[in-house]
């Protein structure tokens, strides 16, 4: 039933309409990512966008601290539970499972997230944004990996597209992603 290679892909990479205002990089599905994953034999699963249903489509640029509330973590856990069940089943079937997040995101960051303990949100003055890219996972990724671990499943490789980073370079980011995918599926 399960494929040998399975990629769990951040929702906004398959649906740019979910992105925070002004940050959609394409119309809908990211064609480059689709081609990269299918070219390597991955089956695709779409992760939910946890921010979309919680803070809404017109949410502004928020940092990790703003989302790090008990209510948002419960929301993430509810969304993550069925995903974790499927991840566990894929791992049990022997698949290589890779999670693909979005570095720089407060929710979907894998290696890098965005932090700003004092940032309260000033949507009329976006140039005043007071946050920094820091090492760490986004809230949803953290919750999802904990849900997978709680099921006693094996390790999930995790990588990301750096789409929410200020110095994002698509060619460079996808080259790094390809390397991560190859490493995650190496015999």
């Amino acid at each position, binding site marked *: 039933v399960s494929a040998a290679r399975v990629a769990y892909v951040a929702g906004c990479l*398959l649906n740019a*309409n979910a*992105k925070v205002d002004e940050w959609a990089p394409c119309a*809908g*599905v990211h064609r480059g990512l689709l081609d990269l994953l299918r070219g390597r034999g991955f*089956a*695709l699963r779409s992760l*939910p966008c946890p921010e979309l*249903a919680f803070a809404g*489509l017109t949410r502004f640029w928020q940092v990790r601290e703003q989302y790090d509330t008990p209510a948002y973590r419960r929301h993430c856990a509810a969304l993550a539970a069925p995903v974790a069940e499927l991840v566990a089943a894929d791992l049990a079937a022997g698949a290589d499972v890779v999670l693909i997040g979005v570095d720089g995101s407060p929710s979907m960051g894998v290696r890098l997230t965005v932090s700003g303990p004092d940032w309260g949100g000033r949507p009329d003055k976006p140039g005043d944004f007071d946050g920094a890219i820091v090492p760490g996972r986004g809230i949803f990724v953290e919750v999802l990996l904990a849900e997978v671990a709680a099921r006693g499943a094996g390790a999930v490789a995790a990588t990301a597209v750096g789409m929410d980073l200020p110095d994002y370079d698509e060619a460079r980011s996808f080259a790094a992603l390809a390397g991560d995918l190859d490493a995650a599926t190496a015999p």
Partner: protein
Amino acid sequence: VKDDGRSRRVALVSDAVLNPPPDGPDVIGAVTDAGWGVIALPPPSLPAAATRAWAAGAADQARELARHGMTIVAVLDAADGAGRAALTDALAADPPLAVPSLVSAGDDLNAVGEFLAAHARG
């Protein structure tokens, strides 16, 4: 939301649409090239309770997008009855969201293309 390249069109799709067989028509490629975003249901192998939870999350995302005037449709695999039922129930939950749906073989490229083209035109 300002213009930033997003299409404002989203399809809720079965796993068979997102993952067509390698030797079959490239349905997801066509959906992508037509500019639709997708929110996919899980494969039919997922137990029913988890499928319902997954579909509930998908429906809530669709509600929020629809609330802002985006076009939402569903392209569903006729062979995935459990997934379709879960999505139907999730969309019927309060507040209900009516979504034009195509139920076809997951690899029916012509049917999917015509359906999406009709709804892309509004």
